[in-house]
Structures are given as structure tokens and as C-alpha cells.
């Protein structure tokens, strides 16, 4: 399919690209150039214009100005999708899986048969799908409907599909955001293999470590502009962050620190005992004391997310009890959990977090409707004041409290979700993947916000598989296959935790009390 002869130029070269959405300038005179076989990273803060560039590079949208060339030739015409896909394949940031269709069909969407008039041979299609999935070690029935897959499995279907076109240039827009460590490893192995065959990548991620692991060149965008392009080796992490944020960073460490204060002394605020939820986890317990942040680590199918959701009242466990400050909480009811003082940051802000067309103020106060006025009223003045305080406290970048939340960049949307959870002044904050898809700068401040909760004498539970998140915890419980398998005090090494999350029991056994302090 692809031309094996030496390429006549960069696989892609874009110059002077500008794109506006109404009043928003998403890209301003931006450029990028990816050499054949190069692994090229594109980084920038939320809303810097990365995904917009992706949609222009893949022909989904047309730039307002600028030139675009593939292998030295002008880009195909706007509607000629086949030509586009011969030049560039893409894993988009937003899922492009169609839930009601089978995995096999999703993989070969719009190319189920060789020509439009030739009937589809489902048997062959299934066989081809099986082979393709096999290459990624994804154990999925090609016949299953996509909606039956886990998020991670879906992401792999997505990746397998993009890579299966045989294009010599592949764009991956935050492909790792939905994968756990093992998944990321598998993906990277595959990418390196392809790279060895001379395939070029444009790789987008907010995990700078991944950039260093995988890429040779990095391009930084900021505020819709191109800032710099350099070999990865020439930019250390600090320089990279500076380029992204435009501010000299005040050092490498985060602004917050894990104090470890109150770890053993604090009174248990949250106590979950013997919780079981069929199909997700069994007999799990957790204690969180005032002043500490507890991590609940676990890979995709470990049940840690469901466990966190159960604490927030989203699921009713078959067994077990939850108490907050020694008072039992009715399980399976969000209002009960809220009343008991449990705040909740859901896993996916698009699904459970935000009401997109409503304002920032409304979203931020969704949980505290009863505190904004007498007799069940919601006074606009109080809502606004409340929201403005949140905006200031969490440093949310928004034109105003009345802006629809959908107009904010991803990181700022995530802050609104956190604001919503903090609005009730919870004793216990349960946050699931709180920094999902958020840029490095915002991540730091979000974790800082969560630490603050603990520092004020309350407690927080971070449910995540991201080591960066878990580093903000005083204590981490690792889950595997629905059970808590290990517990770590602050100061664990990455390998320790990762092994535990992969089911090989770490050096520290759960419930073990004697742990070293740092």
C-alpha cells in the first residue's frame, strides 16, 4: 500500500496554519513537520490547539489559512477520504467506536468489503479482525458488540484500527489517557516495532515521561502558536514545561508536599468495611484518617474505580458498611453519601461530570442547591458569589461564571468538576482519576487542591492508576482482580507499586502496620 521508495520530503509538513471557531482562535500561524520514520511529540497545555491541528492534518476540518503537504505533495481534496487515509492514520482523542456495532465491523468500518457493490463477507471479516487483534494481544471476541468492551479494550480496538491502514504516518492524540501501565507498555512495544519499519508518528500526551520514552523530537504549542521544535534530548523536563507554560518554573518539585502528618494519629473519618460488589470487587476495606490522602491504585479491571464509586453512592454493594466519622452511611444513594459528607469527582467528566451547555456557576454549584438560598430557592447572587470564589480558589480559567462550561478547555473543565465536589465542603473527597487528560501544570494544581483538603483536617481518596496521582497520597492501597493486595506508605518505588497493581504482591503486605517513615 505505502510507497516503499525513499520519501521525497517530510511525511507531513504544515505551515502557516490558522483556524478559528467563531471568536476562538484555535491555531494561529502554526507549523509542524515530521520526517519519515521520526517519532515526533506534540505537547502543550489544554486548549493549545493540538487536537485542532490533528483534525486538520487528517482532513476532518479545513484550515482557514496555511499549506499542508504530505511527502512533498499537496494535501488531497477535502472530501477525498481514501486519499487522506492512505497518507495519515489517526487515533483521535474522542472515541470513534460505534457502540452498537461488532468489534470486527468497528475495525473495518467503511472498508468491510472491497467495493461498494460487493457484499460483505462477515466470516472473512471476523477472521481478519481476529488476526489484527491478535497482533496487539487484545483478547476480545470480534463478534462482541463494542459497547460490551471495557474502556481500555475499546481504546485498543481504536488503535488497532488506526494502525491497520498501513499508512506511513500515524497520529495518536492522547492514546494513553485511557490505558493502564501494562496497556501503555503494549502500545509502546507495537509503536517501536512499527517505527523500526520506518513508520513516522505524531504523538500527543500530557505525560511528559512518555515523550521522553518514545519520541526523538518534540514540538511545543502554546496559546494556539508554535513555540519550539527541538530534539527531545536537548530539552529537559523543566525546559519543556517552561515552553508549554511560558513561565519560568520555580523548580522541579510540585508546590505541595506529602506531609504524612496525622497518618496514624488522625481519627478515622472514612471507614469502609467488607464491601463487595458482584462482578467488580470482593470484601474490600479501607480506612482514611483525618489529614491523610489515601490512594486506591489498580489497573483497568481491578475494581478500584467501582470501589470508589461505591463510596460515593453510585453502586449498592451486596455486603459491607461505610461509615463517615463513625456514622453509618446508606449505601447506593448519592444524596445519602453527600449528606454524610462524601464529595465525589467522577471518572469521566464528559459522562458523569458536567452538564455541558450549562454555565460554570451552575455546574460548580450542582451539589449544593440547598445552600444557595432560603426555602429551596437558588439565588443568582449567591450562586455567582459561590462560583466566583471557586473560580478564584481553584484558578479556573474562564471568561466568567456564566460561561457555558463546554467552552472551557479540558483542564479547566476538570477543575469545575473538582469545584463541584468541594462545594459541599466534604469530610471525605473521593476522586477518580482526577487529573485525567489534564496538562502537567493543571495536574499539579489539582493535586494540590486535593492535598489541601487533607491539610485542612479532612480526608481524600484518590482512585487512579497514574503514578503521578498516587504520589500525592500518604498511603496507597493496591487492588488487583477485585481485591486489595498490598498497601504502601509514601515513598514507594514505581516498580513496587506497578508490580502490585499487576497482581504480584509487593514487598509490603496489606494491613501491615510497621512501616518506615520518611
Amino acid at each position, binding site marked *: 500500500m505505502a510507497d516503499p521508495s525513499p520519501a521525497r520530503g517530510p511525511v507531513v509538513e504544515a505551515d502557516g496554519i490558522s483556524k478559528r471557531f467563531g*471568536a476562538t482562535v484555535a491555531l494561529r500561524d502554526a507549523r509542524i513537520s515530521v520526517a519519515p520514520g521520526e517519532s515526533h511529540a506534540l505537547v502543550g497545555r489544554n486548549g493549545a490547539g493540538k487536537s485542532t491541528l490533528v483534525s486538520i492534518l487528517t482532513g476532518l476540518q479545513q484550515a482557514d489559512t496555511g499549506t499542508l503537504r504530505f511527502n512533498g505533495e499537496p494535501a488531497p481534496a477535502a472530501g477525498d477520504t481514501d486519499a487522506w487515509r492512505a497518507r495519515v492514520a489517526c487515533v483521535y482523542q*474522542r472515541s470513534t467506536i460505534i457502540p452498537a456495532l461488532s468489534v470486527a465491523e468497528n475495525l473495518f468500518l467503511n472498508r468491510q468489503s472491497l467495493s461498494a457493490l460487493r457484499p460483505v463477507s462477515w466470516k472473512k471479516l471476523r477472521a481478519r479482525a481476529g488476526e489484527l487483534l491478535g497482533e496487539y494481544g487484545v483478547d476480545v471476541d470480534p463478534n462482541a458488540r463494542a459497547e460490551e468492551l471495557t474502556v481500555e479494550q475499546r481504546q485498543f480496538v481504536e488503535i488497532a484500527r488506526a494502525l491497520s491502514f498501513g499508512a506511513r504516518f500515524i497520529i495518536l492524540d492522547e492514546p494513553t489517557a485511557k490505558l493502564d501501565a501494562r496497556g501503555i507498555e503494549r502500545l509502546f512495544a507495537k509503536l517501536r516495532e512499527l517505527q523500526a519499519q520506518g513508520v513516522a508518528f505524531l504523538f500527543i500526551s500530557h505525560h511528559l515521561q512518555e515523550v521522553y520514552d518514545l519520541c526523538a523530537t518534540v514540538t511545543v504549542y502554546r496559546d494556539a502558536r508554535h513555540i519550539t521544535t527541538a530534539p527531545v534530548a536537548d530539552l529537559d523536563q523543566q525546559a519543556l514545561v517552561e515552553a508549554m507554560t511560558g513561565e519560568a518554573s520555580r523548580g522541579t518539585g510540585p508546590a505541595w508536599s506529602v506531609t504524612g502528618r496525622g497518618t496514624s494519629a488522625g481519627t478515622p473519618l472514612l471507614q469502609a468495611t467488607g464491601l463487595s460488589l458482584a462482578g467488580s470487587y470482593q470484601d474490600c476495606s479501607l480506612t482514611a484518617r483525618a489529614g491523610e490522602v489515601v490512594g486506591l491504585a489498580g489497573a483497568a479491571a481491578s475494581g478500584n474505580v467501582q470501589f470508589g464509586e461505591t463510596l460515593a453512592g453510585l453502586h449498592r454493594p451486596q455486603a459491607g458498611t461505610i461509615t463517615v466519622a463513625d456514622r453509618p452511611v446508606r449505601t447506593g444513594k448519592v444524596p445519602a453519601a453527600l449528606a454524610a459528607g462524601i464529595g*465525589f469527582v467522577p471518572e469521566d467528566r464528559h*459522562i458523569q461530570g458536567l452538564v455541558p451547555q450549562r454555565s460554570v456557576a451552575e455546574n460548580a454549584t450542582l451539589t449544593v442547591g*440547598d445552600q444557595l438560598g432560603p426555602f429551596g*430557592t437558588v439565588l443568582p447572587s449567591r450562586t455567582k458569589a459561590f462560583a466566583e470564589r471557586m473560580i478564584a480558589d481553584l484558578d479556573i480559567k474562564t*471568561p466568567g461564571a456564566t460561561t457555558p462550561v*463546554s*467552552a472551557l478547555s479540558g483542564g*479547566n473543565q476538570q477543575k469545575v468538576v473538582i469545584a463541584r465536589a468541594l462545594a459541599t465542603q466534604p469530610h471525605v473527597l473521593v476522586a477518580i482519576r482526577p487529573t485525567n487528560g489534564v496538562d502537567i501544570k493543571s495536574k499539579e494544581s489539582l493535586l494540590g487542591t486535593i492535598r489541601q483538603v487533607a491539610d485542612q483536617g479532612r480526608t481524600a481518596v484518590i482512585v487512579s492508576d497514574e503514578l503521578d496521582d498516587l504520589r500525592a497520597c500518604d498511603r496507597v492501597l493496591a487492588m488487583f482482580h477485585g481485591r486489595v493486595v498490598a498497601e504502601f506508605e509514601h515513598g514507594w518505588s514505581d516498580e513496587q507499586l506497578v508490580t502490585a497493581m499487576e497482581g504480584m504482591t509487593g514487598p509490603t503486605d496489606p494491613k501491615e502496620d510497621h512501616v518506615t517513615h520518611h
Partner: protein
Amino acid sequence: MSPTTDLSGPPATAALVPAGRRFDLARYRDLSLVPVLLVLGIIGFAVSPAFLTTDNLLGVGQQATELSLLVLGEALILIAGRMDLSLESTIGVAPVIAMWLVLPDHGGRFNGIGLFPSWTAIPLCLAVGAVIGAINGFLILKLRLNGFIVTLGALTLLRGLQVAVSQGQSIVDVPSSFRYLGSASWFGAPAAIWICALLFLLGGCALAWLRHGRALYAIGGNAEAARAAGIRVDRIVWIVLILGGTLAAFAGVLYTGHYGSISADQGNGWIFQVFAATVIGGVSLNGGRGTLFGALTGVLTLQLVVNVMTLAGVPPLWNQFLNGAIIIVALIISRFASGEKQE
């Protein structure tokens, strides 16, 4: 109405550029029919001097009352992300069942079972409406059936029930309480107009300033997010469906008083009008957007069009054509006035 992430939603307004202008437009989305109303007013004025008389305008107002109550109910339901087609049958069947319960079992042209005293007619009628809403709610929320088709079935079923109970007759001898509200006049204007205005005002205030009113927008906008934020989604939706049924039943009370009898095809075919009015008035069929004020301008637009066409003496053969055309034109105007794509 599922919890979804709408990729094609409104264009994200700038976080970079001061968003003043754009934002204002969005704010006045609910006013997008006001220019249409003005134009209709001017045409009406040009067409006939009778247009701008109190008599005529109050007439238009009163004619709009029953429809507007259905629109009020439907708007609340749509904002909460649901639909109810059966309102158009409730407006007929609720009064008929109330009559059947209170009218004596002999002597009249229509015989009931005389189970309750006749002063209970209005409360009974409202209760029937509430029960209908509750049953719809049960089927939709507990059995998780498709709301559009459940209420479509209910639309047919209830109309059939009305025919069966009334034996297809109109009921002329209705209790005076029933007759009063639809025909009385307060302070120089029909009572029905005052009542509707009051209900819209109450509803509007509740949506704007009450916790449970605000919750409707959250539920309609993203039910999952609302649930995760501790809003009792199913309970509130159920209440809204019950409220919708009750409002439709109350529209039935006004209708009966206004037209002097309960006819067997009361409200027949109105649901299309209800949807048209609500949506051209800026309420989204996908939930989470719109105001009662907008919905009200929708009703008034449709009603004024009929009035102006009658005044202008449009040939009867072209009436229906123009009615359809006006819906599309109003839709186009409200789309471009608000600048938002509709999905």
C-alpha cells in the same frame, strides 16, 4: 435522552477573546421569536383595524390558554429531557372520567356512576391527569420503556378510553365549577388568561430560582452528571411527568368551560402544535435548554398566525399550507436569530 457527550454542541465560546457579544446572543435566544411576533403584529395591523382591539387580542389570548397549558407541561418535560405525547388525550379523557365519577347514574343524557359529589369534579379531573402522568412515569422510569412510544400508545389508548367512557357523546351538562373558570372574566380579561399567566410566571420563577427547577436543566443536559451530583433524577422526572399530566387535565377544565361542553375529540391533533410551539420557542428536544417564556412566545406566534390569516381572509383552501409554512419559517428565524445549530 441518554447521557451523552454532544460533540456538535454550541461552538465553544472563546476563553481567549472576551466573550461578551457571543454570550449575549445566546442569552437572548429565548427572545428569538419576539421579532416574529412584532412582524405578525404589523401585518395584522395593516390587514385589519380590528386587529389591535382589546377584544381581538384578548380573544387570541383566551384561545391560546388551553394550548399554552399543554405547552407549559411539555416544556417542563422536554427541559428534563423527556417527551410526552399523551398530553393531547389527557385534556379530553381527564374531564370525561371526572364527569363519569360525579354525574348521577340516571336521568342525564350522559350517565355517570355518581360516586363523588359534584364539587369534587375539578380536583378529580386534576387527579386523573396526575394518575396518567404517574403511569407513564412508571412505564418509562421503572420498566425503562421508550418514552416516545409509551406515550404514543397512551395517546391512542386514552383517546379510546374517552370514547368508550363517554360512548362517543359530547357531555354538555357539566357542573358549574367546571364551567366557571373557562368562561369567567376577571378585571376585564378572561379568567383563563390570568390563570395561565400566573402559572407561566410561577413555572418560570421555579425554573429560574428554585433548586428543583434548576435541577430540570441539569437532568435534561446530562442525567448521569446530575445523578452523580446527588440529584434524585428519577424522582424529579416522575414528578415532572405527573405535573405535565395535571396541567393537561387543568387545560381540559378550561377547555370545557371555554367551549361549553366536553367533546369527544377535545384536543385531537394538538400534540403537533404543542411540539411546534415549544420548539420554535427555543426549547430543545434533546433536553436541558429553553425557557417557559420562549415556549409562550411559540404559542402566541402560532395563535397570532391563525388570527391574522382569518382577519386577512386567506382562502380556506390555503390555510393549512400556510400554517405549515409558518412553522418552518419561524424555525428558520429562531435558528438564525440564536445563531445556534439545532440537532
